[in-house]
């Protein structure tokens, strides 16, 4: 599930790069030519950002050192140097025992399946925006936009709360269906392992579709109006302009989103799956991030969990670089 915020990040980064390329080439007028007195200040300026760099270092770079834990049988009580050095034992274990392999395969299946469903669903915000743009009544358009964006701003805990109060066996939906005589037994929407992938994707869509559409609506607002006018001169109708102007104009944004979603295929986060997991659906809901949490924090095997998340980070970066190279080749601009 691509987080829309990331999209604008990428778009913004692209602009940034174009800009810096430009400024390196042509120079940005006054900013290049500085009196020498200003040069001397530069290290002083740097010192003012050091506290922030320290935060970045501590919370993003220092933990990389923690990858070393994957080579130990780490016991928090004994500390790193009291723990036994086991070399690649954990990595071998991941591919060694059949039960472990089975587990990893299932986790990977869940991760990839839900990511791919999320990617397949990423056309929905685009369609949403294109069709919403065809709504002429401004108040209605604004209302729809406001209400459909709202779920994006609540936590997964609240989403689960909503799911629980509406879809649990004593919830409203089951109550209604029973009243209408459609069912006699309550349907197990939440505590069953059927269609978990699909249900999780649907909740993801519910939460993010309106929000994702904002980005496309912004892009639509930026489309050159003369395109529409000249198309109409040529006799194009409403559906023609939708299909031949609006949609193609949104494709670059869509493509960036798509590439990013592919780069993030292993990172579907854990919060959604954590709140929705229970004894019944554990098998099919466990994605990589949740798996790392479950074996590390709940199961207490910090070293094995580190090994798994380390592999995940490495594969993710490799994917990102691959997608970046692809983007460079296809579109001439890079994502990172």
């Amino acid at each position, binding site marked *: 599930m691509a987080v829309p915020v990331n999209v604008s990040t990428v778009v913004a980064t*692209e602009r940034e790069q174009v*800009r810096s390329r430009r400024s390196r080439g042509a120079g940005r007028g006054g900013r290049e030519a500085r009196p020498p007195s200003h040069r001397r200040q530069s290290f002083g300026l740097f010192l003012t950002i050091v506290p922030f760099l320290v935060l970045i270092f501590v919370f993003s770079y220092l933990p990389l050192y923690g990858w070393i834990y994957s080579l130990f049988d780490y016991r928090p009580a004994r500390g790193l140097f009291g723990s036994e050095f086991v070399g690649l034992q954990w990595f071998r274990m991941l591919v060694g025992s059949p039960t472990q392999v089975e587990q990893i395969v299932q986790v990977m299946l869940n991760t990839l399946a839900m990511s791919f469903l999320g990617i397949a669903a990423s056309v929905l915000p685009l369609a949403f925006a294109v069709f919403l743009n065809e709504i002429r009544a401004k108040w209605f358009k604004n209302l729809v936009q406001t209400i459909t964006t709202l779920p994006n*701003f609540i936590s997964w805990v*609240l989403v689960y709360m909503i799911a629980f109060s509406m879809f649990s*066996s004593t919830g409203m939906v089951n109550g209604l269906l029973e009243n209408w005589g459609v069912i006699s037994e309550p349907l197990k929407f939440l505590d069953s392992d059927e269609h978990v992938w699909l249900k999780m994707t649907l909740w993801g869509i519910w939460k993010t579709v309106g929000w994702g559409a904002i980005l496309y609506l912004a892009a639509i607002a*930026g489309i050159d109006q003369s395109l529409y006018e000249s198309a109409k001169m040529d006799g194009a109708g409403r559906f023609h302009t939708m299909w031949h102007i609006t949609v193609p104009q949104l494709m670059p944004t869509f493509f960036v989103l798509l590439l990013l979603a592919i780069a993030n295929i292993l990172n579907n986060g854990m919060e959604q799956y954590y709140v929705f997991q229970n004894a019944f659906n554990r098998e099919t809901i466990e994605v990589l991030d949740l798996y790392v949490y479950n074996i590390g*924090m709940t199961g207490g095997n910090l070293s094995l969990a580190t090994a798994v998340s380390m592999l995940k*980070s490495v594969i993710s970066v490799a994917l990102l670089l691959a997608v970046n190279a692809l983007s460079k080749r296809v579109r001439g601009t890079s994502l990172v």
Partner: protein
Amino acid sequence: MTTSTLSRPRPAKIRDEKGTVPFSIVNYTVFALLAFVCGYPFYYLIVNSISANDLSALGEIRFLPQGMHLDNYRQVFDLDGLPRAAVISVARTVIGTIATVLASAYLGFMFTQQRLWKRQFWYRVVIITMYFNAGLIPIFIIVKSLGLTNSFWVYILPMVVQPFNIILVKTFVESMPSELQEAAEMDGASILQIFFRVYLPNMTPILATIAIFSAVAQWNSFQDTLIYITDQSLYTLQFLLYMYINQADSLAQAAQQSGGDLGAVAGAATSQTATSIRTTVAVVVVLPILFVYPLFQRYFVKGIMLGAVKG
């Protein structure tokens, strides 16, 4: 989106085009349905939290509140830990948002300053962290060894520097005329004066966007309490809500496994207080967002456009 798009006179031809009227009907209906699907759950929670508890426990309250009362809110605030969790949630949201906004503004501005020592290098050092992290467990071990577990600051410190926000501010500053800075320099202003007096006041649209993003992220954050906090006095509202839902959940499961008849299950799973407390806490958690969100909507829509469209 823009008024010119909307009020522009439509050529008559469009109206006559085949299929346009049925299309519009379907289109309006579908969007009305979507809005209902997205909006109704919020309405449902609110209506249930103010209705008679026995009715709401049976799932009888669907559209109009019945037996309206506000006792739930009074009772919920008497609950052990809830007022405290509310204070923690508000505190982390306020402090965290201020810290993030100031840091983003300052760093974003600084990274536009050519004279900053090794500017490109440090900028990359910050941006790379957006795509790459060591993973949950190594971060947990570092946070723990710094003594930040079971500390309020674990809610704030890791969130201060957000690369994405820095990119937003940097791009925004670069789109401002550089004459602003030059003129201030002519007048002998120092770089900090330029930042605080000239740039900061002009950054409001982008800072408002960042503020709403980080406020919502702070308010909604659940995972950090789950991972780093065992001390109950530092629980957040989200975490408390999760615990309330789960307690009722396990109750329901226990009742189902013991094979009781349906009526008994319903009674055990959603005794009056369980449902009413759950919905009421949910409303307490969601209400601030419902209030703040419409006020800020135009800012973040603008902010997204700043980030996405101009390029």
